[in-house]
């Protein structure tokens, strides 16, 4: 069986230890976590967690079942199960921006509609939002300029609503 990437949307009780339980489940059972993103939901008693993992179908089935088995886990949805979903990630990139390449960086920002959120005589901090491909394309283009630091949020995802007929 071939490995696939899987993005899981998980609602958990907003209790201390819930995140530790999930992280412990992955390390204890030898599952992978590529990225993990946690925040509150509209309901303050629930947290939302987007988790990107990999595995063959049998492993992914186990991951989902094991998550559901945790007493604190309210709901698990495999967002990637269907094609129709939106995925986004944000990155802050601190890049060397000195005389000779300031213009070039500025152009890249325009082409990709990136925001420059901090400016110093020698650096820019650039905010990138998009899917994985866009982030990687931007990083590749900025690499030659000299990236000093990158912070990425990890993926968040949402299923698209079914189009009404």
């Amino acid at each position, binding site marked *: 069986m071939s490995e696939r990437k899987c993005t899981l949307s998980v609602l958990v*009780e907003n209790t201390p230890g819930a995140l530790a339980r999930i992280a412990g489940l992955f390390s204890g059972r030898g599952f992978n976590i590529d990225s993990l993103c946690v925040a509150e939901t509209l309901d303050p008693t629930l947290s939302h967690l987007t988790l990107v993992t990999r595995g063959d179908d049998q492993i992914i089935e186990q991951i989902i079942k094991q998550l559901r088995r945790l*007493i604190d886990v309210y709901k698990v949805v495999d967002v990637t199960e269907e094609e129709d979903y939106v995925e986004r990630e944000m990155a802050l990139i601190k890049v060397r921006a000195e005389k000779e390449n300031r213009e070039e960086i500025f152009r890249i920002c325009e082409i990709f509609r990136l925001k420059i959120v901090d400016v110093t005589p020698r650096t820019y901090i650039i905010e990138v939002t998009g899917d994985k491909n866009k982030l990687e394309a931007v990083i590749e283009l900025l690499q030659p300029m000299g990236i000093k630091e990158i912070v990425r949020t990890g993926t968040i995802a949402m299923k698209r609503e079914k189009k009404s007929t």
Partner: protein
Amino acid sequence: MGEIMTGAKMVVEALKREGVEIIFGYPGGAVIDIYDEIYKTENLHHVLVRHEQGATHAADGFARSTGKVGVALVTSGPGATNTVTGIATAYMDSIPIVVLTGQVPTKLIGNDAFQEVDTTGITRPITKHNFLVKKVEDLPRILKAAFHIARTGRPGPVLVDLPKDVQQAKGEFNYPEEIHLRSYNPTYEPHIKQIEKAYQLLEKAERPVFLVGGGVISSGASEEVRELAERLNLPVTMTLMGLGGFPGDHPQSLAMLGMHGTYYANMAVANCDLLLAVGARFDDRVTGRLDAFAPFAKIIHIDIDPTSIQKNVKVDVPIVGDCKRSLQRLLELIKEVGKPKKYFKERFSDWWAQIEIWKKRYPLSYKEDPNYIKPQYVIEKLYELTQGNAIICTEVGQNQMWTAQFYKFKYPRTLISSGGLGTMGFGFPASIGAQMGNPDKLVIDIAGDGSIQMNIQELATAMDQRLPIKIIILNNGYLGMVRQWQELFYEKRYSAVKFATLPDFVKIAEAYGAVGMRITKPQEVEPTLKKILSLDKLVILDVIIAPEEGVFPMVPAGKATTEMILV
């Protein structure tokens, strides 16, 4: 308005509401308040153990033998860490226990305070769930949830960590009659479409095998198992945890399968075309090499825990549900369809003929020796004398496997043994719990000379409670199971398996005020067993057995279950 009381009193009140009459524990600084309440309470019998591990195993043995939730109470820090093996043992075998641990005051948590340890952190992967109580107002709800989670769904241990200031704080005691947890809803009722699919496979099968696991015991489904097996003329094999789920003396029993299972059970599974597995989880000790396990079979798997299904083996008809209810639905459907018993009798007659050939070819056996007591003979005699009417606890290793092979467990909850974790030192403290929960029954611990030493301090506990437990030590002077592996797979390099010093178990018994006896010759076995069974006292019987006796059949680890080493 509920009564205003301290957290400590709430704990004791909650225990009463849950119908708890016996708890096993050991006091300490962080639980003195609870012990003070116990002092003031009637109808709550506290069993003072000698080591906290003993408390959890005793609570576990109580739960396994009675079907009720077992309770242990210990202090913070070392008290809590000493329970870890007991909790993990209960977790692996899905046994409902609630462990109450003291904790340093909430203000000190995280400060490396005296006797502080991150108890919920340590026990997170070995509990079904655990709680750290931060406010006294939360206590009634959490205690209710703890018992609810422990006993429902796939049962398991739940730990509640109780900081000292929460025990001392006062609050209103409103104990909920019922509790609903939105994120915890185990599935009891099976999907009827899946039951139909299962039946269709059963009707069309030619060589079926019925595999019974521990889930049958915990859901109380042994009556249904028997009815189904007899109705459909199915051969029945059991996992270690499933022994007693179907009568071991029944003509349709193939006894235990797996690493030390019978030749005929393993051959039947390897050749069957349909495997109906109920409440079993296909542990590696059961399956052997996975790709050679039941290679021709379609598999129907009934389990209340969806994670057990499709975890190790590929299942054709998964059924998530309570074992008892699922079997009831299946039986209803069978009656509705109405195929006569004769149909299955005739349909599976060739298959049974083949099984009978296997049974005759290699029955469970051992070589007799006039100079040595054979452990298998001891267990056989014990079965004859008790007729299956005893609760048999075991330690782990050869003693456990000989017991599983040669004692025909007729009833559920009569074998108390650490299956999943394989905890040496489990059997004796578990027998304390079993005897406390079943004061009128005969409780026997089958031990090895290694295992018994792991929790031998609990002799004092058993004497305190005047428990007439019979401890039978199958004493070969070796850590026998490891020695057997070294003999077979490590060219007899017996590394670290012979104790240079072995205590005199007869004198140990006497030191605690119990009865000690020793036998060394085969002809002493029967009269001595008769004698100890008639005594209303705690007895240690030290049986000096053939030192290099092995457990057979044996499937070497990682081999196919058909590649058995026979006697």
